[in-house]
Every structure is written in structure tokens, then in C-alpha cells.
């Protein structure tokens, strides 16, 4: 149909990053990176119906969300595109030790492998703008009372502000035993920890194993 007007140059010459999952491109998204209207996190992972295997963190397929009916849990499944809607507190066990609440939807797509290779775990989330925020929150693990909520105006700060805020929130929460003690039921809650395992203190590494 378009043979007469098709650009004949190799696509890599026109758009080097045309395929975000290409071996040479994907490592740029191994944490998170903003492109246009979205933020992308892309990783190679062993993906099966039983697990999404992170070589550093273990199985990270189990997600938890907090809604009007309390805690709801589930497993990421290969070939199921899942969207956590804006404003829903959510976390992934052993992956980040806080409840993430953001003003943007988050979309997850685990892609199974060709043959017996690692597949892909793709995260796409809207890029915050204006006064939109991300917050790092902790709820009592016994009675779900809100203990601490640290808000970052990521629409202004971008991803740099997100990571800085995450670390500050974790340090403040872990540094004050009163914050971790539930004012309703007096339960002392476990410490939080950052997404990046390299930032863990020994106590945070212990908390990562727990929740």
C-alpha cells in the first residue's frame, strides 16, 4: 500500500530507540525513566504463572492494594495487563516497604518468554504534572490506621524528587519509633525500606524479608 512513499532507510537510523525492549535500549529503563507523557520501568524477568522472579529480591509477583473493603491481594499473571488506578494505595511484597499512593494510573504487563529465556516485566505510569503527587505511606499492619504519609509534589520535582522523597520518608519513618507505633491499637509496626535494595540498612534488609 505505501511502497511508493515508504522511508527506505533502516529504522535504527531514523529512530534509534524505536523499540524500548531492544537489548541496547531496555537497560536505560532498568529503574524508571520518563519519556513523553509516561514513565517506564522495564526489566528482564523469569516470568511464569507461579512467579515473577527478581534476581535480587526473589518473587515479586504478589501485590497488595488497599480499598474500601480493606486489603486486597493478588498475583501478577503472564499476559494479563493490569492497571492500578490513581489514588489506590498499593505495594509489592519484598519490593518496596511502604504504600505507594500516586495521582496517576500504573499499568503492568508481564510478557512471557520466547522459549526458555527471561521474559519482560513492563511498568507504565502516567507522568505527573502540575500539583500531582506521589506519597509514601504506612498503615498499621494490624488495624490499618494511617501512621505516616510523606507527600512529594512530583509534578514539580520529577523522578529525582520521587527518589529523594522516598529515601527521606523511609528514614523519617524508621527513625521515629512513635511513628511506627499505632495510636489506635499500640502495635509496633515493622520498618520501611526503599525500592532500591542497595539503600537498605541492615535493619531495613531485615524488614524487606518480613513484608
Amino acid at each position, binding site marked *: 500500500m505505501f511502497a511508493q512513499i515508504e522511508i527506505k532507510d533502516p529504522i535504527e537510523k531514523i529512530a534509534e530507540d524505536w*523499540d524500548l525492549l531492544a537489548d541496547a535500549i531496555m537497560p536505560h529503563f532498568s529503574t524508571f525513566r520518563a519519556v513523553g507523557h509516561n514513565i517506564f520501568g522495564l526489566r528482564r524477568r523469569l516470568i511464569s504463572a507461579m512467579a515473577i522472579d527478581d534476581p535480587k529480591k526473589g518473587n515479586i509477583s504478589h501485590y497488595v492494594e488497599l480499598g474500601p473493603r480493606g486489603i486486597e491481594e493478588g498475583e501478577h499473571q503472564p499476559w494479563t495487563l493490569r492497571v492500578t488506578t490513581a489514588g489506590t494505595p498499593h505495594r509489592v511484597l519484598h519490593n518496596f516497604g511502604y504504600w505507594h499512593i500516586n495521582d496517576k494510573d500504573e499499568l503492568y504487563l508481564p510478557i512471557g518468554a520466547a522459549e526458555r529465556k527471561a521474559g519482560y516485566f513492563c511498568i507504565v505510569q502516567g507522568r505527573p504534572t502540575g500539583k500531582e503527587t506521589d506519597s509514601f505511606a504506612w498503615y498499621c499492619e494490624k488495624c490499618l490506621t494511617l501512621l505516616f504519609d510523606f507527600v512529594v509534589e512530583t509534578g514539580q520535582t520529577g523522578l529525582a524528587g520521587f527518589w529523594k522523597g522516598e529515601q527521606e520518608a523511609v528514614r523519617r519513618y524508621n527513625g521515629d519509633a512513635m511513628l511506627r507505633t499505632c495510636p489506635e491499637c499500640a502495635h509496633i509496626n515493622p520498618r520501611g525500606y526503599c525500592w532500591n535494595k542497595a539503600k537498605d540498612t541492615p535493619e531495613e534488609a531485615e524488614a524487606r524479608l518480613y513484608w
Partner: protein
Amino acid sequence: MDAPILRYLLPIGPDSPTVGRWTRTHDYDVWTDCRAADAPPLTLWEARENGVLRIPDDETVMHVVKGGTPHHVAQLFGYWRACDSDLVWFRIARADFVRYAIVLGGTPEAYVNDAILWICPSCATSLGRRDFATGPHGIEKFWRGEAESVTAFNSDRAHRTCPSCGHEHPPAYRFRRAGLDEAAPAVAW
């Protein structure tokens, strides 16, 4: 009061009830499909200043169409679309199936305008463009405009005949989504 929707689950498999359909979330419009490996491929094209660019039908593809870039998917919709929102295109071929997904959006406030256009396949001359002032979250205006635009383009051969080279463009067709009450096009270009 309706209970809030916390999540959307869209299995991309041959028996999934959501394949072939658009799903609206807070920030996104998501379409998924799963087709037999031997079915004609859905090939993504982008229009550039110096011609049209074919995005390869590789085994695993995740491609971003930047907002405002005219794009077309062969076998899926018979027009070029230029919408203000970015679009993420997935194509994943495994064994007996090819799975597709379109994720449109991310920053709803950036979605102000959507457009349908046609380009002469012989010389790249514009054969017309219709813009829709959708405004954020106003994608229904695009879908209403889509039906009208396709009907208008197909209603008169003169609309489809290139004023520069005389080439006759094949008829347009609407996005081939599940539930569309419309016969398949004679030429699914």
C-alpha cells in the same frame, strides 16, 4: 454510589472477553487483542516529513508513538490518526498467537485535540484532515467523529482521489473493535 474501581485486569488471550475492546481507566484508554500467528499482521506505520515509516513486525516490540505523530495500523483502522496523547504499541509473537496492546494516554490534560487524516499512498499528498477538540478525557468526541469522517471520505470518490497525482485511495474503515456493527472492509489496508 458506585464502588470505586481499584484495578482493571485485561487478560490478553484468545478466550479473554476484553480482547478486541477498548477499556477506559482514569489516565488511559487501553485496547488489547490476541490473533492467530498466521493471521495478517497488524502493522504500525508512522508518518514523517519525508514519507511513512513502517514499524517492524518483530517478535517483541514496544514502541512509543509520540503525541501529534500521524499513525496508522494496517488491518485495524483505515485512516491516519494524530492524537495529542502518546501511544504505546505492544506486539508480542509467541508460538500460536500474536498479542497486541495499545496504551493511549498517561497525561490526560495533554489530550486536547485528536485528528483523522488521509495521505495519498502514491505521492504522500494530504487528502484531508478532520480535527476534534476533545479536551482532556473527551475521547468520545473522537469516536463520534471517526464514524462521520469515514462515512464522509467514502461518500464521494472525489474525496479519495489525489489532486496531485490522480491516485484513488481505497475506502476508509473504522477501528475494527469487538462489537462494531459494520461489515469488514473490502480492502483492509
